[in-house]
């Protein structure tokens, strides 16, 4: 699953996610990527989020919106909100994967609870790419 979140010069956030889903899937199974609030979410007042991982868990835990909700209602930073959802809530419930999240000030969070996640960000023209934990 690939995803991207961006903040433009006008202060607007956007999120996108695209995936081939799960190998050997049957019965028209759909994961979290196209489910707004589960695998993809964006709100200028909070953050933009794209997720990758075991979709069923991300749907049941409404992961992308949950991160935004923690920022909105509990005033958490994007980093704390994303960590709370991916490293605590999702782990407790057996969901494996990660997210990229970006707030209106350009703060990036990229937590994942799997062994690795292909990820990167670019800020001030400097790209940073990482794969492993």
């Amino acid at each position, binding site marked *: *699953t690939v995803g991207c979140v961006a903040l433009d010069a006008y202060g607007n956030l956007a999120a996108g996610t695209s995936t081939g*889903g799960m190998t*050997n899937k049957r019965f028209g199974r759909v994961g979290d990527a196209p489910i*707004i609030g589960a695998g993809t979410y964006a709100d200028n007042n909070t953050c933009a989020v794209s997720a990758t991982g*075991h979709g069923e868990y991300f749907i049941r835990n409404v992961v992308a919106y949950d991160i935004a909700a923690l920022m909105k209602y509990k005033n958490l930073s994007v980093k704390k909100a994303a960590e709370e959802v991916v490293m605590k809530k999702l782990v407790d419930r057996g969901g494996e994967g990660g997210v990229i999240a970006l707030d209106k000030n350009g703060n*990036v969070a990229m937590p994942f609870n799997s062994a690795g996640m*292909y990820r990167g960000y670019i800020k001030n023209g400097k790209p940073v790419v990482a794969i492993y934990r």
Partner: protein
Amino acid sequence: SKITLAIHGGAGTITRENMTPEKEKAYREKLNEALQVGYDVLKKGGTSMDAVEATIHVMENSPLFNAGKGAVFTNEGKNEMDAAMMDGETLQAGAVASVTTIKNPISAARAVMEKSPHVMMIGDGAEAFAKTQGIELVDPSYFHTETRYNQLQQIIDKEKTQLDHDGGSSSNENIFTEGNKFG
């Protein structure tokens, strides 16, 4: 300027032990390329929506990732893709699911958002809509990659082995490897 862009290319049991130097180099190069393409859009005054779409195109068009050209196979041997986009300014959103002929599903998701009153379209209907919007359609064989097809065969073989020897249990080994999760 606060312009910033972040990407992911999938999560899973991705460790140094199961990565060759060549494979790692290929992933790093493509991730860097995707970042640069999106950042260039932002730097030239493009919108975050334009940047997200352009960035995802790079990864959809690469066989390295489980999206577009590198999509995994269903049990029936098809490549069936999903995508979504959301605009943080307007809270508008669009998505497509179970599409098999749209070269870049992220563009179809954006079209659903911007050119229809709906949020999600699926399957044949989503493809018919994409066609009306001038979005590029391809033959399903475009998405076929040997690596992904072999993954499907291995999983099917594994299931057969499990059934033959122990019908009551299923191994979770590598289940979360990107592109190796199985239904």
